[in-house]
């Protein structure tokens, strides 16, 4: 078993070594690079989640004011991680999203608001992402990502996985599927002339799935570190938010 894993890892390593230097593009969709109708479509799809997010935050804060600090932490975490453009094995850079933590703490909707704020900051001040594509980018990073993270964490709890593993998988898959969503969005807007949407999607994904993997692993690990601190110091709030069941 162990031997097989070793062989597999060596093969992967060699694959990476001889991986053609394709530059992946695991980042947000740039300003103006999504046709108007798609911009509007994603805006319309994202809006209800933003409303749900605002309501969900209000509810959480009402239950326990101490939760405000946690909310700030979730936002700050996403802020830091989005600012870190890390190098990846494909020879290009991308950044993690940091939304998994907030999704685990506050459920699937609250991060839509915080993620949108992060994206807005980057679109206005850094020309990274864009205002026209804000709807689409919010949908991938702040709706799909957190939703995946939340579902995975709860599933992990249900299956009685060790908590660190649930947290890791939630953050890891949330990050990865954010960018899978981005590639679907682009494939829908720019289908390939041969093979249409699916071919374009494979093109986008085949490249950057690889780019995002190490970053998603990093994000998972960083989320574990923060979460461990919270379990040690903020148990009361975590129980209030039903992240941890009482008296466990």
């Amino acid at each position: 078993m162990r031997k097989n894993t070793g062989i597999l890892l060596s093969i992967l390593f060699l694959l990476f070594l001889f991986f053609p230097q394709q530059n992946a593009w695991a980042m947000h969709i740039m300003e103006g690079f999504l046709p108007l109708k798609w911009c509007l479509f994603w805006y319309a799809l994202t809006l209800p989640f933003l409303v749900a997010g605002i309501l969900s935050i209000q509810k959480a804060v009402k239950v326990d004011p101490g939760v405000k600090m946690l909310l700030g932490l979730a936002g700050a975490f996403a802020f830091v991680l989005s600012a870190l453009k890390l190098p990846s094995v494909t020879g290009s850079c991308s950044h993690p999203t940091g939304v998994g933590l907030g999704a685990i703490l506050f459920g699937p909707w609250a991060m839509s608001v915080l993620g949108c704020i992060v994206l807005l900051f980057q679109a206005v001040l850094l020309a990274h992402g864009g205002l026209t594509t804000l709807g689409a980018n919010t949908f991938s990073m702040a709706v799909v990502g957190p939703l995946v993270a939340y579902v995975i964490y709860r599933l992990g709890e249900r299956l009685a996985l060790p908590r660190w593993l649930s947290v890791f998988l939630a953050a890891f898959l949330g990050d990865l599927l954010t960018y899978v969503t981005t590639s679907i969005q682009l494939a829908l807007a720019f289908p390939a002339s041969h093979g249409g949407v699916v071919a374009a999607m494979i093109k986008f994904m085949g490249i950057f799935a690889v780019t995002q993997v190490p970053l998603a692993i990093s994000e998972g690990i960083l989320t574990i570190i923060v979460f461990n601190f919270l379990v040690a110091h903020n148990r009361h709030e975590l129980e209030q938010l039903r992240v941890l069941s009482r008296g466990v």
Partner: protein
Amino acid sequence: MRTGVKNLLLIFIVLVLAVFPLLMNKNAEFGGADEQAEKMIGELQPDYQPWFESVWEPPSGEIESLLFALQAALGAGFIGYFIGFYRGCRGNHVKRNQPGELLGERDTGV
């Protein structure tokens, strides 16, 4: 394993993950992915013209890195504040392996 040791180990793994690609692909550009995105779209639909420009672009790479640093600093600053605050609340004398104990008079942090 103690929490501190565990965290150091985890941070070390993150560092390795970040440095490894640099050592592996010595000749790679490590550019941002945005330009490649444009290329890819150009391949798929050569006649597509972006219909909107960024409202404001950082005038230079230096300014851009300033803003990225600012973003990271703001976030990291708050995280540091948060950790310090709750460590202070709890007091370091409480054993880390008894996290369930709550203080009688908790400061809710508001």
